């Protein structure tokens, strides 16, 4: 056993000895990144000093590290992609990507990772690319601490900041993503983690899941996007401690759930979104300890939503807490705090003695005739809501919280 360890250490030492550092700078023997990559062998480090390098497309097909010092600029000249990684165990850090090509026919990316395992992309800056970082058929990679900034104006002619397609076990951590179509787009991406990112000002979604299973995202901030996060056609997604803030506009959601199963949504904050959570065909989902504050609609539930369980959430000063458009459902609400709740707690056990019905008559009316929103907050509507609350006729009886909390939980 001892011998084996010794052998291993020796091997490591030999390998470390073999790895060499190739420095690229304007006054060095090697002035071109392309040349440096060609000379490098598996395990080498290409170290790029600050400066501007206009070399077009660079292909990395060896297990090397590319490390920038003081953010050297790789300028793509606006024609093609800048860096393609087509090997396992590649590290790219400290680079700045500019002038990557745009095309409406091909999905050009500033940095593409193709069929790679154990890659790591960290601490880079990417400006005004069509796609920022494009991961395809890769696994076990990390994408962290990058800044990807764009100036997209139209959804149809723009790409995503981080785009992953057929990937597994990715870690996307602490990136800043702004000005693209989607901040992060995951399609057929499983067992991955998205954490601590700030995604704001993107045209469509801050984060977008398609056909991706067993992923989790937490502690991210999604602000001022077309919609904060869209989770579609996915299973077993765990969403925790995110902030969905000010996704505000004519069709803006904090969180859009469409055809998803078995998700957990916990500890998130939804503030100032036009619609906090929009559900369509969402099944077997647990919502706990989320805060919904100052949203237009906190929750809008449309057809085919089964087994959604809301407990210990806070609904505070939303214009409308809940819109439900079907009467038959088995979704439950239990032990939430509703700032609209007007009941009492005579036995002092912390929960109200009369059930709370979060669906107001006005939300029902809005469903029938959306134009009646002009009557929002009018005295007549208040009267209607009040009389409906006393004796419900139109609003679904089943949608009620049997033990509403008297104090907020968060």
């Amino acid at each position, binding site marked *: 056993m001892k011998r084996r360890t010794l052998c291993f250490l020796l091997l490591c030492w030999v390998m470390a000895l073999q790895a060499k550092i190739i420095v690229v700078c304007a006054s060095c023997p090697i002035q071109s990144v392309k040349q440096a990559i060609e000379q490098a062998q598996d395990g080498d480090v290409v170290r790029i000093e600050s400066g501007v390098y206009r070399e077009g497309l660079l292909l990395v097909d060896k297990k090397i590290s590319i490390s920038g010092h003081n953010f050297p600029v790789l300028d793509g000249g606006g024609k093609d992609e800048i860096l393609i990684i087509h090997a396992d165990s590649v590290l790219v850090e400290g680079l700045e990507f500019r002038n990557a090509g745009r095309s409406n026919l091909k999905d050009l990316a500033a940095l593409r990772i193709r069929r790679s395992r154990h890659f790591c992309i960290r601490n880079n800056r990417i400006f005004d690319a069509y796609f920022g970082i494009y991961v395809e058929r890769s696994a076990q990679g990390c994408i962290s601490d990058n800044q990807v900034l764009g100036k997209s104006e139209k959804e149809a002619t723009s790409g995503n900041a981080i785009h992953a397609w057929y990937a597994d076990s990715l870690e996307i951590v602490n990136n800043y993503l702004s000005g693209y179509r989607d901040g992060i787009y995951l399609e057929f991406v499983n067992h991955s983690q998205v954490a601590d990112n700030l995604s704001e000002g993107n045209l469509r979604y801050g984060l977008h899941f398609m056909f991706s299973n067993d992923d989790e995202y937490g502690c991210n901030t999604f602000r001022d996007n077309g919609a904060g996060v869209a989770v579609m056609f996915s299973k077993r997604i765990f969403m925790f401690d995110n902030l969905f803030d000010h996704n505000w506009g*004519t069709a803006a959601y904090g969180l859009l759930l469409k055809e998803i199963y078995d998700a957990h949504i916990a500890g998130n904050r939804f503030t100032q979104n036009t619609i906090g959570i929009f559900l369509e065909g969402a099944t077997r989902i647990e919502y706990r300890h989320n805060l919904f504050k100052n949203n*237009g609609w906190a929750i809008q539930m449309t057809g085919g939503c089964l087994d959604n369980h809301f407990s210990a959430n806070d609904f505070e000063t939303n214009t409308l807490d809940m819109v439900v458009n079907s009467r038959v459902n088995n979704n439950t609400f239990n032990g939430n705090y509703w700032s609209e709740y007007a009941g009492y707690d005579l036995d002092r056990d912390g929960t109200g003695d009369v059930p709370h019905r979060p669906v107001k008559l006005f939300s029902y009316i809005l469903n029938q*005739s959306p*134009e*009646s929103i*002009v009557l*929002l*907050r*009018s*005295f007549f509507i208040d009267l209607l809501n009040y009389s409906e609350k006393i004796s419900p006729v139109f609003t679904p009886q089943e949608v009620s919280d049997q033990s509403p909390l008297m104090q907020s939980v968060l």
Partner: protein
Amino acid sequence: MLKILKYTLFDLLRSRWSYLYFAFYLVFTAALLFLSGDVSKVVVSLMNVILILSPLIATMFGVMYYYNSRDFIELLLAQPLRRTHIFWGQYLGVALSLSVSLLLGIGIPFTFYGIFHAAGLGHFLTLLMDGIILSFIFSGIAFLIALRHENKIKGFGLAILMWLFFAVIYDGLVLMLLIWFRDYPLEATSLGLALFNPIDLSRILILLQLDISALMGYTGAVFQKFLGSQMGMLLSFGALLLWLLFPAWGIRQSALAKDF
């Protein structure tokens, strides 16, 4: 006209009802600000009260003041004064005294709160302006009703009915209309209908200030165009100003035609 206005104004400012009205707003606003520090929340709560109360009080005051000062009006009519000046002077006096109560009642607590350095100044000013304009419009209409009806009971009844119509019934009718004809595109219609009710107009003006415009824009393109731009603001404000002119013009017509 100014002299009559001044006389009416000071007469009313000495009245105990003006103080009561002022005190109500003062206490109510102060309590709201004390209970919740969020300006926009306070504005929404105040909005509900002002949109109902200020037209109601203005209506009552207008009718009452006219009937109470009938003898004085007859005395004035014997003097070489223009009729329009007499009635306009009295009407403006009533409206101004109500506005002063409202302005001070809401303004003082907000000033102490430090609204002039806070973020919600725009919301607050819109609310105040709405309250004042509504006072003017409704005291004017009340004056007009009183002028046209010698019978006090009838005048009172009509004035209250008018208030009830604008504050409650109108919205009910609009809602019924919207639900009946929901198969048709009604965006423009619903906005158009709002223009015919000063209370609805004021409400929409405040809601536009409060960022609820995006919420309303959710419904469709017409709303978005109307509410998302300055045009909505200008149009509703313009309509409110037209509403201001209507009672003044009506008082003039009635005053000139009336046989005392």
